[in-house]
């Protein structure tokens, strides 16, 4: 058992999910009909109705989407770690044009990712697309300063431990409403005025968690691919 902490996390996660599926029959029944759409904006506080559906009325679906993504990341990292790493992964044969443009573009791409994540409940976007945009920014960084440098800096920030903790936190946010006496998988934080950044704190929180999760997950997949299957 190489990573006892990870194993415990995985077992706890599985138990929690099984618990939700098997023992809880009080999953909120929010049928979403076209004429409910405007109602949904006021009940969740999210003016982007797509977010209101997939992080409000249909949070159950999204939870499993996140878990599917987690399992995919674990699978890729597990099977690729068995393969020998390519020796040339460290070399940086790219041009100066790329290096110079990466310096300008990287903060902008990160900012766009952040915007998509934080304003996902107001305008198009959300945690999934924001996380992927930020991950492609990281990829640009890898091309300009090299895989090892980026990897060292991110690992220094404890990014991988966070990767295992984030699914737990998302599940926790889904379960927490029970403590406040509300149905499971509902938005428990007080709803504000629709169209404001803090108008829908639950959806904002979920978007941030999902954005981080997708960013770190995509980075780990990319890192595994570059390290073990390709060169950059």
């Amino acid at each position, binding site marked *: 058992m190489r990573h006892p902490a990870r194993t415990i996390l995985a077992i706890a996660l599985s138990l929690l999910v099984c618990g939700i599926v098997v023992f809880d029959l009080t999953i909120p029944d929010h049928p979403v009909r076209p004429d409910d759409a405007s109602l949904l904006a006021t009940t969740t506080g999210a003016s*982007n109705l*797509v*977010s209101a559906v997939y992080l409000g009325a249909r949070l159950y679906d999204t939870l499993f989407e996140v878990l599917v993504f987690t399992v995919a990341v674990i699978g890729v990292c597990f099977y690729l770690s068995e393969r020998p790493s390519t020796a040339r992964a460290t070399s940086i044969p790219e041009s100066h044009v790329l290096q110079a443009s990466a310096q300008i573009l990287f903060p902008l791409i990160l900012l766009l990712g952040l915007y*998509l994540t934080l304003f996902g409940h107001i*305008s*198009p*976007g*959300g945690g*999934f*697309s924001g996380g*992927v*945009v930020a*991950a*492609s920014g990281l*990829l640009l960084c890898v091309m300009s300063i090299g895989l090892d440098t980026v990897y060292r800096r991110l690992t220094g920030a404890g990014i991988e431990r966070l990767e295992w903790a984030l699914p737990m936190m998302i599940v926790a946010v889904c379960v927490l409403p029970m403590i406040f006496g509300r149905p499971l998988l509902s938005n428990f934080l007080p709803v504000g005025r629709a169209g404001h950044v803090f108008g829908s704190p639950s959806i904002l929180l979920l978007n941030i968690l999902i954005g981080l999760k997708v960013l770190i997950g*995509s980075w780990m997949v*990319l890192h595994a*691919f*570059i390290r073990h*299957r*390709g*060169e*950059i």
Partner: protein
Amino acid sequence: MISRAVLLVLLPIIAGISLFQRRRLTAVIGMGLFSLVLTANYLLHSAPDVAVTEAAIGAALVTVIYMLAIRRTGRLLVVADEVPGLLAFEADQPVGVEAEILGGFARRLGLDLSIQIVPYQDVEIVLLRGDADLGAGGLSATFDARLHRSREHLPTAWVHLCPEERFDPHLGDSPIAERCDYPGYFSDLVEAIQRNDRLEATLDMARFLAVSRIDLSGWRVTRLPSPQGYAFVAASRRKHLRDQLTDYIDELERSGALDDIIRRHLA
């Protein structure tokens, strides 16, 4: 309305075009373009959320992952030492008989030709290590039995070059006649002879022609019996690649293109 229809019709067209690309890089870029048009489609059909995700994943991330994949599999990696007339670089472009054959062969397979210059002796080592697909650059000697030799594309002969004072009349019988041999890169050898270093070397015809432009007074040149011609050598696990290359050279010869290439570069 019209723009929606145009963008929808564009989708199968772009998908079809990228499907029929021989070169993998073009196909991958075609798929990236497909994602971009799909993004515009989503946007015009009032699905901006899906459009954002499609742009981030389809056009950016997936394209890059495909590129990483074809960086490993989408090129024909050839190791060779430079030989004027056969395979040499002029203004960063490979020229010569072998360069032309390999270029056509890579196009046929839909791969990008990538030629790495290594010293003559290292060609065999790199191929045995499996770090390259093909060896080229005037290979006429016998190689390790684990490597696969393609058919010959040009006859050659071997010449022994040694300083006058070290000449051995029984040279033809000695084992030195069984290998093409000189130290390091061919360009180093040319420089060494120009400096008049007193070294011995066994050269094939193309290399000897390049050397013979230097003043060779004081050197003894002996022609050795050699039964072989120039060929390419494929790495140990690339037997199928060798067969494909042999077929390609056969085809070139039948169509007369091979003679044409040889005449253009070695006339």
